């Protein structure tokens, strides 16, 4: 058993409905993926789909193994595009926020 990375993840904009209707979650993910590479955001998304999502409609969160277009990802409050997107390597206590823009009002 390798070490884990503690993270704060948050789901807003309607995405929380897929995750027990709870916005904030404190989680710990393995520090490396199955191939031994350091865990990145792409790995986190896969991990969330396997471990945290409660709703069967996983396609509302992930499409084609990537975060569904229209969902914004913030890494420590910055657009993930500025941080390397799914290649960003997770650090202890990172805050990762997923915000859906897809839901109306």
């Amino acid at each position, binding site marked *: 058993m390798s070490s884990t990375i503690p993270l704060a993840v948050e789901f*807003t*904009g*309607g995405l929380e*409905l897929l995750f027990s209707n709870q916005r904030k979650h404190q989680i710990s993910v393995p520090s490396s993926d199955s191939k031994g590479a350091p865990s990145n955001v792409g790995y986190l998304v896969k991990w969330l789909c396997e471990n945290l999502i409660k709703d069967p409609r996983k396609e509302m969160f992930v499409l084609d193994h990537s975060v*569904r*277009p*229209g969902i*914004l990802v*913030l890494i420590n*409050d*910055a*657009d993930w*595009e*500025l941080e*390397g997107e799914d290649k960003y390597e997770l650090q202890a206590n990172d805050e990762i*926020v997923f*915000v*859906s*823009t*897809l*839901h*109306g*009002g």
Partner: protein
Amino acid sequence: MPPHLCQLCHTSRAQILRPKNHARLCAPCFISTFEIEIASTITTSHLFHPGERIAIGASGGKDSTVLASVLQTLNERHGWGLDLVLLSIDEGITGYRDHSLEAVKRNSAELGLPLSIVSYEELYGWSMDQVVAQVGRGGKGNCTYCGVFRRQALDRGAAGLGVRHVVTGHNADDVAETVVMNLLRGDLPRLGRGTSVVTSMPSAVGMGTGKEWEGKGRVGEVACTSVKRSKPLMWAYEKEIVLYAHHKKLDYFSTECIYSPEAFRGSARTLIKNLERIRPESIMDVVRSGIDMAKLVPNAEGGPGSGKPEAVQRDAGEDAEGGCGGSNGEDAGGEMAQMERKLQQDEQAEEDGTETEIKIPTKAVNGQRHDRDTQTSATAAALTSNVNGQDHDRHTHPPSNTTTTVPIRTKQEKKSNRKATRDTPPPKQRLGQCERCGYLSSQAVCKACMLLEGLNKARPRTGIEVGGAGG
């Protein structure tokens, strides 16, 4: 990797990658840039006049929440003297609208803006829950009822407040979706309305039942007004609206309407979002293309043959009702046309059946204000001058695009300017008001009254079968 620095202040860490120009900004610089651009849309389009009383169509969702917050901020910052009110529609959808209205109430308190709520139940005698119980669930009919009812409800709500201008939270992504939907339907004449920042709908807001109309002079009973509609956020990406709400920690409600089966809009939306992931500029390019194409369509709303100021996209009454949710009836065409045909058939079959009384409460249109005379010239200048530092999309667009920049004054518009109907005119077509409720309509009975008649006759499952069978 070292953090990117904000391209504006060069000191803080960049947090936002702007979709339209790939600029990297810190949150404070992003927020001020976003506000400057909305102010620019407002001033260059001469959207408001000083002291104007404006209703913000507030759903509790992200777009209208951001719109209310930004307008309040800009109004105070620039001393525009606007009299802002929140106007919400309560469709009567348990588990959806009741929750979102709570968000509107919190915003009302937070922003210190008065809130007015008009309900379908009070206006029409039917909540959407009751309509769905009547016509059945799961078909397209629900959204048609809701869209037709919403448009009138906003106008009547505005009239009740003495407001002549309603602003809605439609954003660039919404407009791009609408352009794509109209293209896919081959509905080029409708492109103009969806893509213009201002739509103007003169509407008769005489409040009364059909009975009250009988034998009475209409003049004096009916207060005709012109409720202008505009979309101050139409040049703002949905991503930036959501990020603005996030970084300003605004309180909004997000969920889907429990009755929304708008598969077609959903597909258009998915297409737009997929394009954005690959090439974010696509969204604004679709919007611009929609504007340019609208100008090429003869006799369309805003097209070359329409014979009216280019900036004012006339809604032509309710000729293009339908649609649901965020669309506010600005796009859907096909479903309503089908519904209309069916209702007309029903009407013919009924011949002169029993007169159905339409429940629309009588409300005086009072307190209408014209504050132009009281404005100070300084305030006027604030609303017409350019905002410093603006970097607005429109400025990079060819100057031939006047669709969104001509000053808006709609009261002088003549009825003869009404849009030519694309299809063969339905029976009993005429220009004027609904004979039952007084709402502006090209037909003797407006769509809402037609729908209500169907409901009140308790004809089972009318709407649904129309949507499915196609007449």
